[in-house]
């Protein structure tokens, strides 16, 4: 079931993940459809509570027992939604693996680094001890850890944050997965180290023809390191496009507002930032119509009544869910009004 580079590796069709709670059903992921080809990298962007983390865990089948899933997840042509943990074990590590945000919490503090890398090699690939150890050293070299052999005998607390994240990546790569999830992999790291880790993930993706799903809240992180971007809001996909097209031609007012709220290096100091008032929707009682309408400065009557479907933009592969997208007469009229009132700052020169 190996998929050739460039062929479709992952296909989600109307994937829903809901959680049963005392308050009612939390619609954490509410109907996501997308395709990912082998070797491509996809950025999943959203604020806290947008469902971005649940989406990736849902694909991997790493969910608590209160979760209810609907829809389809096809991986390498095989339906994996509904598989038991026992069946999924054959895919975890070997076909798909995950790098988490906090490397100190995800490594076993009582086990030497070497043992943690060797374990999946023995389990999934049936390697003998010497072979596995040699592979582990090579993996640590691949992720640019100096003095790889000495590191095998160290414990996680003896390494810096950046080094621990490299070890996590080495473990995730150990069995040669075709799909790597990186969930906020650099949020806990310093900016100079973040740049190194993102480069490393990208380089390994190219070398191994691996697909990467990079989950982050930071539009800056996905801009330089992904082919496609999926913007999530309130459990739904609200905009999806090839990275360059998305940044050149944002359609969804939410994406645009998010972009405008980021302080840009090119802007002079004390530039007024755009804000998004209110807070993310309650996923137990989502608003009627468009999820974003209550916070949207451009919402019209229709937005509060009717939910907008995903619509195709002029560029291939670009879809968005909005009745009055950026560029429509309704949006532009309102935007000019808001800019005049000083509520919405003008776009900076650096961003088209």
């Amino acid at each position, binding site marked *: 079931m190996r998929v050739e580079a460039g062929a479709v590796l992952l296909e989600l069709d109307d994937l829903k993940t809901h959680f049963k709670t005392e308050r009612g059903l939390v619609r954490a992921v509410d109907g996501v459809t997308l395709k990912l080809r082998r070797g491509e990298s996809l950025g999943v962007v959203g604020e806290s509570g947008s469902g971005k983390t649940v989406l990736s865990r849902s694909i991997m089948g790493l969910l608590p027992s209160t979760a209810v899933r609907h829809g389809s997840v096809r991986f390498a042509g095989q339906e994996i939604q509904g598989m038991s943990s026992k069946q999924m074990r054959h895919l975890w590590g070997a076909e798909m693996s995950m790098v988490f945000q906090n490397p100190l919490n995800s490594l076993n503090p009582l086990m030497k680094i070497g043992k943690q890398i060797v374990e999946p090699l023995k389990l999934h690939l049936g390697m003998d001890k010497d072979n596995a150890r040699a592979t582990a050293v090579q993996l640590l070299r691949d992720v640019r850890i100096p003095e790889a052999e000495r590191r095998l005998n160290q414990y996680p607390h003896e390494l810096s944050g950046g080094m621990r994240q490299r070890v996590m990546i080495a473990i995730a790569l150990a069995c040669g997965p075709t799909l790597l999830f990186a969930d906020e992999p650099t949020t806990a790291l310093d900016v100079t180290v973040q740049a190194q880790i993102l480069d490393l993930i990208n380089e390994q993706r190219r070398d191994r023809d691996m697909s990467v799903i990079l989950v982050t809240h930071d539009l800056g992180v996905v801009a330089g390191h992904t082919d496609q971007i999926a913007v999530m809001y309130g459990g739904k996909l609200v905009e999806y496009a090839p990275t360059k097209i998305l940044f050149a031609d944002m359609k969804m007012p939410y994406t645009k507002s998010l972009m405008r709220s980021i302080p*840009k*290096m090119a802007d002079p*100091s004390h530039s007024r930032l755009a804000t998004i008032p209110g807070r993310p929707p309650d996923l137990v009682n989502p608003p009627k119509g468009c999820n974003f309408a209550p916070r949207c400065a451009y919402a019209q009557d229709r937005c509060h009544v009717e939910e907008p479907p995903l619509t195709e933009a002029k560029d291939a592969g670009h879809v968005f869910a909005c009745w009055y997208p950026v560029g429509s007469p309704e949006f532009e009229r309102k935007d000019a009004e808001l800019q005049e009132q000083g509520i919405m700052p003008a776009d900076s020169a650096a961003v088209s």
Partner: protein
Amino acid sequence: MAGTGKAHLRDGDRVLSIEDLVVEFKVGHGNTVKAVSGISFDVLRGETLGIVGESGCGKSTTGRAIMQIPKPTSGSIVFEGRDLTTLSHKDVREARTKVQMIFQDPVSSLNPRRSVRDSVLEPLVIWKRGTAEEQSALVDEILESVGIDPKRAAESRPHQFSGGQCQRISVARALALDPTLIICDEPVSALDVSVQAQVLNLLEDLKEKYGLTLVFIAHDLAVVKNISDRVAVMYLGKLCEVASSDDLYARPAHPYTNVLLDSIPEPDPNADHTVGRIIGEPPSPVAPPAGCRFHPRCPNADDLCAREEPQLRSMGAGHFVACHHPVETPVALSAD
């Protein structure tokens, strides 16, 4: 990365003036963490000074040293004409009413068992400011000015508010005693970008309204540029570069500042995302390198850098750098 120089200190109406600040912590086995190693800077009235650097550079320690938590190992911290390091415990407590602090995690910096209105009111009660009615009116006014409904604040505890709202409440508490200076330690790094923008705009508005002076500590250079008038870049307990916000970003002179700026992931897919990478991570502050502390990671380093610590010197136009080989910038140096 000397920072031992003082060429960048100014005359004028200085609210805060720090000279040769050293903060060290004993960590057992006879080791000492040299968190801050002799830095000097000043803040003028109404100014926002940004302090940037990576974890472990001493930026938070510097902020806390101003509050005397803990008292610095040596150096002077002159606030409104008085050296806080020489004051008695009682006088320091009193001085702290004029120097307030806002922290990174807004939820854990509020008492979970009290209504948030009580948390904002408490400083006024402790310092017996006015009658109960006056205190109550003031609290309502401050809560309104940070965009929190006073009625809801009286009925609710911190967990009933979002992170952004809790940060607004922390700001309100800091404002209660009518401070001169607020030290903001990573106040927006735990918030979503849309909320971060709200809090940054709020700080700008309040600064105007209450005539505040701010020290804004953060690791995010874009955020610091947005809010600051002047920026100080720190590395491993030393100052690298001090300049006006716009000038620092237009012509960064220190190799470390350049590396930091190049590492920022810009939300622009056409930007070159591979320039200016450095290898490795900051060394331990227990045994910082000799000479310039940045030299082991610096692309421009030579023997001199390993041997001798550079002093802060002027690059013109209020721009100062501590480097033997500052990056050449095309902008002509003005006479200074």
